[in-house]
């Protein structure tokens, strides 16, 4: 079974159609990188997967569960899909460790001691064990985003959604976040990544999707698509991103 399956998905904001009958299926272990101009619908597509946006028509199945299946289905989908945001969105009143412990305790019902152990292990994995007691405000952007990734991983998702995870970071801080994402991909995590990081798409992506006007225009092997863009539109876009 596919990990994520879009069937003729339509999403609109008022009169504006943002996703126009999108079909897409993502298999376990794939690293799908989505690129496209702003307003092309790439972030919306990502946010529809865990029902942060509600769709108007069609259906999305995540591990067989429908985003239109009601509260309990959505709850299960969200436990299965970890999300990382452009603006990190760490809880400012909690330390890094508390941020990572929060999901296991409150969404998974884990005991505090157990959650702390898990959180420390995941913080170590993203290289931030020494920052466990720091509040988000005391961390750099790159560190905050790594904590945010750790927080998403702590609910033990089967799928990770990244919404422009490096767009708010200084160029020299981006690499530390990309490295963590690379490590995750190497562990066979299923990932959907909306980004402008073309190098990441080339090196880590197993699949590249180019979106425009609410439609998937190209969908294929990143190395092939980037090396030999099949349309002048993609070629044009890539020139402007670099």
């Amino acid at each position: 079974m596919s990990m994520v399956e879009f069937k003729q998905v339509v999403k609109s904001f008022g009169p504006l159609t943002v996703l126009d009958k999108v079909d897409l299926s993502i298999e376990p272990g794939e690293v799908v990188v989505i690129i496209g101009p702003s307003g092309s619908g790439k972030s919306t597509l990502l946010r529809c997967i865990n029902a942060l946006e509600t769709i108007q028509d069609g259906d999305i199945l995540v591990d067989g569960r429908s985003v239109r299946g009601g509260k309990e289905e959505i709850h299960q989908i969200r436990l299965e899909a970890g999300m990382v945001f452009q603006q990190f969105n760490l809880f400012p009143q909690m330390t890094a460790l508390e941020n990572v412990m929060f999901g296991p305790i409150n969404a998974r019902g884990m005991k505090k001691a157990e959650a702390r152990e898990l959180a420390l292990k995941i913080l170590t994995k993203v290289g931030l064990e020494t920052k466990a007691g720091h509040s988000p405000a005391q961390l750099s952007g790159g560190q905050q985003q790594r904590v945010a990734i750790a927080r998403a991983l702590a609910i033990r998702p089967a799928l990770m959604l990244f919404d422009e995870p490096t767009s708010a970071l200084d160029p020299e801080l981006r690499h530390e976040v990309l490295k963590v994402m690379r490590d995750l991909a190497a562990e066979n995590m299923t990932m959907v990544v909306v980004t402008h990081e073309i190098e990441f798409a080339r090196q880590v992506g197993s699949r590249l999707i180019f979106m425009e006007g609410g439609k998937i225009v190209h969908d294929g092997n990143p190395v092939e698509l980037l090396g030999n863009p099949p349309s002048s539109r993609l070629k044009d876009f890539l020139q402007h991103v670099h």
Partner: protein
Amino acid sequence: MDFQWSVIWEALPNLLQGARLTILIAAVGLAGGLTLGALAGMVRTYGPNSLDWLARGYILLIRGTPLVVQVMFIYFALPILAGVRIDGLTAAILSIIINSGAYVAEIVRGSLLSIPKGLQEAGLAMGLPFSKVLRLIIGPLAFRRMIPALGNQCITSLKDTSLFIVIGVGELTRQGQEIMAENYRAVEIWTAVAVIYLLILTAMAYGLKYIEKRMPIL
């Protein structure tokens, strides 16, 4: 004129009794007002349309009329309309509850709306129900932002209790008025009354400062 300290010493027991009542009305009234305001504020921010209209109506009515009129209505008109007898103290406390509640509701709404939407989404994306997101993430953050404005409201409401002189509740101002009516020592009595209010409100201001220090805005 000669300022007679003995007048103050004599009046002090009665004035302190009035101060106790002032604090009681403010404390119980504000506890109720904060609860009512929190509810109305949440309804205004997140509630369904029907409840939102109810909350809007309540806020419009209360903010659109003076507190003295509200307490007069509760004390004199409500018994006629509803056939229930309400004593002065209850009317005073009720007035503070419904009056401060309307202002608190708008403070709560403003603070809730000021919390970045991304934090709510981060909570929801983890699989938490909205009620938990509100209680564990947005609520505590919004509360910190409310403290300065809520502090203002507490100070205002405490001083508003002096208006209950009109229904004869023996709070601090009323006590001062009654003592003065007997001894005509306006300077001593009103100085003493003013100093007692100042002491209560200074203590309150320090309390608020302490809370704000412990829970800074993030």
